């Protein structure tokens, strides 16, 4: 999966599941402060991403250090590379 594809699909999750305007979906946007997600949303974000990308990330320690949208997109890209997709 290319970086562009990861960005596109991640953005779809934020638009569809969290009703966030596309214009706010910048790599430097803080998921909590700028995009307004809270702890309950993060649980559902994980579920939505798992479904969107066909990955398991819930128990991955690296999830805890994600702060920005860019962090998240890089993390997904890394996971996809690790599983060879």
């Amino acid at each position, binding site marked *: 999966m290319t970086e562009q594809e990861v960005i596109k699909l991640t953005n779809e999750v934020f638009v569809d599941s969290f*009703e966030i305007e596309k214009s706010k979906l910048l790599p430097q946007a803080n998921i909590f402060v700028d995009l307004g997600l809270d702890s*309950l*949303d993060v649980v559902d974000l994980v*579920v939505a991403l*798992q479904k969107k990308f066909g990955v398991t990330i*819930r128990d991955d320690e690296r999830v805890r250090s994600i702060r920005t949208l860019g962090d998240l997109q890089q993390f997904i890209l890394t996971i996809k590379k690790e599983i060879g997709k």
Partner: protein
Amino acid sequence: MKRVAITGLGVITPLGNSVETFISALERKENASIYMPGWEKYKGLHCLVGAPARLEDEKLIPRQNRRSMGRLSIFAVQAAQQALKDASLPQEALSNNRLGCVIGSTMGSAESIAEAFEILIPDNDLSQLPSTKFFQCVSHTAALNVGQFLGITGTVMATNAACASGLQAIGAGYDLIRTGQQDIMLCGGAEGLHPTVVGSFDVLFATSTKFNQNPKATPRPFDAKRDGLVCGEGAGIVVLEDYDLAKKRNAKIYAEIISYSSFGNGSHVSESNRQAIASCINETLIRAKISPKEVDYINAHATATIQGDKEEAAAIAKIFGDQIPVSSLKGNIGHTLGASGAIELIASLMMMEKNRVYPTLNLEDPDKECRGINHVMQPLSKKINILLKNCFAFGGINVSLACKKSA
């Protein structure tokens, strides 16, 4: 004991999403029953008629409040907003712990519960379940969501008793104000329409199955051709207030609640029982210190089931004879289950305001076992000073509430 006034009304119904549009539709004798496309895919579902409400403006509720709301909670929140606006409470009323809410429904959001199991069952995989689905599914979802959305810090309670949920909520709120524990209560019920809910009545042979091709002719409360209930959905919320406080702030008072009672029949999980119903109604009259002839109108539960309607008619006949006008609004909006007691009480309060009784729609020929009472089959002009509202639920839960017009 304090007196309790009703000072605000709000509804979402199969005939309109405001009190005004709902009542206008009743005056035009409209019936909300329609053939429900897609229900035929459920094997073994015989009733394909429902009375849906319209879900609209839900995105006006901010996402982080709305995420925990299934269909019925959205209805409850919208009705609560209407009722609050109608009551014109001062701004500070919501911000102290003397204002609470009691809201009931048969269950959590049926649609959300079905979605949750559709996700879970194929692979027994919990990891696919969104967290917020849980809050949509819990039985107290309506009270939870109204409480959180409005920032309520008073008593928040859920009365989940199927068809009696809404009226039990109003009774519970009445008791909380009467005993001085709260000053203002938002009370009522909500329900969402879903084939699984209809299915639960369908398997008991309680639904209407003969009118799938002619939905407007059903349900038919008390009628000789009745063949069962039609499920509806929506929400009804009333604002109850300490009567003296309401008077002090010159609030509009629709009526005063003068008594409420709820009793079980202790005899059968699904069948109504005329003695138990009569006993509950009698207790309501005793608590209100009124005689049967002082009641001006009875809004019946009458869902159009063969058994339920005749038991209620027999109980009413025993106490009131054929003197007091009786009608059921389920011919118009179907059975809105947890919301029914509240929605139908609100309609009754509007009848009281307009001095007009709305008839039982689709009642053309009262069944011989439902006779002996004064069926209203055409609109009736009548001054209503005292009204009685009945609700009866599975488990033999009987509820009756009396209201008096405020001077």
